[in-house]
């Protein structure tokens, strides 16, 4: 998202909103510096972070997923060092992984003769779940419960995760042998599924030119954000960014379009619409606005809705279907702006 023309957009913002926008901008700057040529993905990840959603990246190996996740974790400072939650963790999913490897387990300490709980990687602000479709459904479901409820149950004991629990999951779109594809119900829990493509030639060249600098990381050259700041930004986005009734109407229209569409066997769920609202707010915040506009909807819809559709055979890609279904609500929305209030 370009940020050149933010001046007239927010005519009157609250300090809360200003702070949230500042947070978002800081994250964005750091991530963009760290992950070259992936501005859209970076933005989506930030939106998901602010919208309290999770991201599924469908990507090839070596495309910068880990870099992205690490940069994100690096951008966050833990302003509550006393708890056991760390900034970033990564899990490489394999078929023989067990739920305890994800959530953590209770371990007997021979010294103290007591069982104590050793937290798994899930107890982190940012969790990179690599190749999530390579592990068994059992492990997947353990993770998914944590994603949905922000809690995990280990040994019949429920433990709260951090409020800022953000999962970036990846899966390889091609190498599907021996995988356990995520069922639709579980896909629904991801706010975004981002289909990444190779970065542009210029960006790739730029990356190679500045390889050393990039590998060195952003470091302290740019300000970080604290966990609390992110949580506050989430709150600000939810409460301050305005969603016009016409936008909500357009959302519902879009849902109807997908349900009516010949090309989709199953349209988007109501939950996706519910998830969409904070996403839209987050994107508006990222764009420097204090209200949700059609532009947010247009930008986010493919990432939010594409993976929730069950397509009829031979219908092309889900993104195409979403774009098609988006056309009419967007047009209505655009025309509404020219109609007198």
């Amino acid at each position: 998202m370009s940020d050149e023309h933010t001046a007239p957009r927010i005519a009157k913002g609250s300090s809360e909103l200003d702070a949230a926008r500042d947070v978002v901008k800081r994250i964005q700057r750091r991530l963009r510096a760290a992950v070259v040529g992936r501005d859209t993905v970076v933005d989506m990840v930030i939106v998901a972070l602010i919208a309290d959603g999770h991201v599924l990246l469908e990507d090839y190996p070596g495309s910068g997923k880990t870099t992205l996740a690490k940069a994100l974790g690096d951008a966050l400072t833990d302003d509550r060092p006393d708890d056991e939650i760390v900034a970033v963790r990564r899990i490489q999913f394999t078929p023989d992984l067990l739920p305890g490897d994800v959530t953590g387990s209770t371990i007997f300490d021979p010294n103290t003769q007591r069982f104590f709980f050793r937290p798994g990687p899930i107890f982190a602000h940012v969790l990179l779940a690599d190749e999530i479709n390579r592990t068994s459904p059992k492990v997947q479901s353990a993770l998914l419960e944590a994603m949905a409820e922000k809690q995990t149950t280990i040994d019949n004991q429920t433990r709260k995760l951090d409020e800022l629990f953000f999962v970036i999951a990846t899966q390889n779109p091609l190498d599907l042998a021996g995988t356990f594809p995520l069922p639709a119900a579980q896909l629904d829990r991801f706010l975004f599924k981002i289909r990444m493509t190779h970065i542009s030639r210029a960006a790739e060249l730029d990356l190679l030119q500045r390889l050393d600098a990039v590998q060195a990381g952003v470091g302290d050259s740019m300000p970080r954000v604290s966990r609390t700041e992110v949580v506050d930004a989430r709150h600000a986005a939810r409460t301050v960014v305005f969603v016009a009734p016409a936008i909500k109407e357009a959302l519902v229209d879009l849902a109807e379009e997908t349900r009516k569409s010949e090309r989709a066997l199953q349209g988007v769920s109501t939950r996706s619409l519910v998830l969409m609202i904070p996403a839209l707010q987050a994107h508006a915040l990222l764009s420097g606005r204090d209200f949700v506009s059609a532009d947010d909807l247009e930008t986010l819809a493919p990432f939010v809705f594409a993976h929730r559709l069950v397509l009829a055979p031979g219908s092309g890609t889900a993104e195409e279907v979403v774009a098609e279904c988006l056309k009419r609500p967007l047009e209505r929305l655009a025309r509404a702006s020219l109609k007198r209030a």
Partner: protein
Amino acid sequence: MTARPMLRLVLRGLAWSLAIVALLSPFAGMADLLAALTGVAAGLAVGELALRRAVRSRWIAVGAVVACLLGPVIAGVLTDTFVARWLGPGLALSLAGWAVFGVVATSFVGGFRALGARHDTARGLEAVLLAASGASVFASHRDGAVGRPLAVADLAWTLGMDPRTLLFGIGGAAALVLLALLAVEHVGRIRRTALLIVPVVLALGWLLVGIAGVTPPPDLQTQATLKGEDGDLPRADPSKPPVDVPPQAGAGAPPPEAEPSGGDGGESPKPHGADGADPGAPKPDDRGQPASPKDADGAKPTPDAQGQDGGAKPKPVGQPAGQDGAADAAPDAQDAGQPPPSADRSPRGGPSNARAGQGSAGGTPKDSTDEQRPQDGSPASKPPQSQPPESKPWNGKPPESKPSDPKPPDAPPEAPPPDAKPPEDGSGGGAPSEEQSKSGSAGQNAQPVAVVLLDDDFEPPTELWYLRQGALSVFNGHRLIPAAPDSGLDRDLIGAMPTAAVGSDAPPPMDARFQLTGSVAILVDHALPFSPDFPVSYAPLPNPDPSRFLRAWSFSSAVNPLGFEGMLGHTANGPDVSPELRQTYLTAPTDPRYRALADEIVAGLSASAAADPMARALGVKRWLDDHMTGDSSRRHEGEGDPTADFLFGDLHGYCVHGAHASVYLDRLLGIPSRIGTGYAVPASDRRGSSLVVRGHQAHAWPEIWLDGIGWVAVDPTPREIVDPPSPPLDEDVARQLGELARQTPPAAEIPPTPRDWLRELMPALRSVAVGLWTILRGLALLAVIGVYLGKVWFAFCPWMLQAALPRVAYRAALHRLTSVGLGREVGESRERHARRVAAVAPSMMALTDAHVASAFGPEHTLPIDAQTWRAWVRAVRRESAATVPWWRRALGWIDPSTPFRTR
């Protein structure tokens, strides 16, 4: 919109419609009224829209005024520019009517509607206007425009009502409905005292009527006008414009009785030249009569009171005419097997022209205008004329009646030329003069001007129907002019369109004639009625088809079944008037050449023929038949005596010249004569009982008086005619017109049978279809205008509005970008569009952001001031102008689709 506002809107439309009908009825036709009513509906819609918009009131007022002015401007463009040629005159005129009445009504009603909803002042004005429409009905009556619109007036007459009552009712009802409506709609806001406007205005109306009086109903009015005219001027005085200019007059025939007397105006195409115009040098080819330089004619008194010459010295010379020449002609007549004129019926004492007086008054000084005559005469004697006198072969068959007789005359040295016309053309040979003089094309004036329905199978023996409308009797020194109505002359003529049964004051003797009845329906306005041969009485008839005909009347005529030969042996003492008046019918120019020619003609007759007036007249006719050449291009204008210029010149001329020459010669031969004017229609044009009269058949012919018969046409029929033949009668048109004229008018319709219903329905359906088509065309035009107005509005409304700027400013910029091909695609969000066009118009981004914020943002968004909005629009314009080539921008202005593509 809920039911009640809708009802109010409908009621308001009704009130305005009624008011418009009352206001426009004096001068608008039905089509224009329809346009105005459509305009009312459109105006209400526009007004409703306008009053809900944030348009400033003064802009509404300015817009209404501009639109009001726009209507006539559009009409002018439609009728006066190439558009008229492109559309065709009919379409252009009807569209112009729509433009004027429709647009004006739209802007008027729309403006009042929009302003009235906002300001009490405008509402009061609206009320006053509507109330005044009631009073205006009276005002219009003062102008005598009672009968408009004709449909309403006709309806009223049919219902037995006075149209004034009906029209006043319409206007008053309109005012009351609107005022009641206003009172209901704005209870508590409008003052009840405002209702006092109604009685005040109505009282004012009554008062005005009381002062000015109400003029009589239209028909009486017309008649009165006609009579008034007759009082001071001859009926056909051409210097007086026709009472009614027929709408088709451009191509149609003017009232034919105006034709032969066109000299007074000085610019009339008639052959007589202007009175008092200098005759100029005598023509070298003037035909002189070298043998007869007797200037007896000079002595001829002219009782003509109107001629400037004032030589009104009645000098009746009781010399019997033409004794000498008769002896020669008589045997010939017998040779031809015609009954010789009986001697005892020989003309005695036709108060006539004095051959005998020759010399006696030869030097009688003529007055100023006549001084040219001696000049005329003197050179006449020098050049030998092109046609030697002996070539007059015409003693062949004096009584031969039909000019069209296939038998050639006995002994003419020259056979009828091959290009001699068929009878209808030949006899009407002079007729095309009129249109020739106007348009130079013979075919152009062949439009039907009237349909005559005949109740009888009677066929005129001359094979020509002479439809007499008027007569020229008085010689004013240069030509013949109509007699003044009160002069006692030509009392047989009926001087006005019949509004009730009228009869001739001097019906002809009926011994030899019989009565022919029938009716005439005219398609082109005429000042005077006409009917075959000798009109005896007229009575008005209901118009059989008001959409085609202007008027209809029934006639009773005394037609003459006798051929020329049958009329031999009658004396010709003239009509039953005083001797002084009778002398008028014998007054001819004093130019001696006329006398010489008359003598020459009579000399060619046998003795018995020369003794008979009819035979003498036929002698004159024959001579002209043989020598005259029908040539309507020759006018003989500007001559002191056009007839002399014609007769003693190359003898090329048309009916008026032939008629004048005939009458002069007849008069010199002692036969009372005059020129009859009207139409001459070939009997072959008759289809069943109907006879279609066409414009080019306007004609003037010589008539002689025969005792016991009355006025009889003895019309020269040139054998040689150089004019192109007149177009044949269009059979379909003739048949249709006949059928239409035979229709009984709708008002008098007897209980219709189902088939009649269908037949009645067809014209109605047709008119509905035509109306719909007109509406469609009007709407199309309005749509085009509306589109371009829309473009202008889109572009400039940010400067006209204070509110709604986020919307209209953005729209103005978007419209600009759309018109240069950078519009928003369907399904594209505004921001994406702005990013797309950012390369061309970077300001669009900020404008879009602000616009979107106002559309989707929270309520508390800080307002952006108007200057900023307008600056953005200007910036977008400037930026796009810098990038987009000029022709692309020009195309954008022309492109009518941009308002629709601006989304």
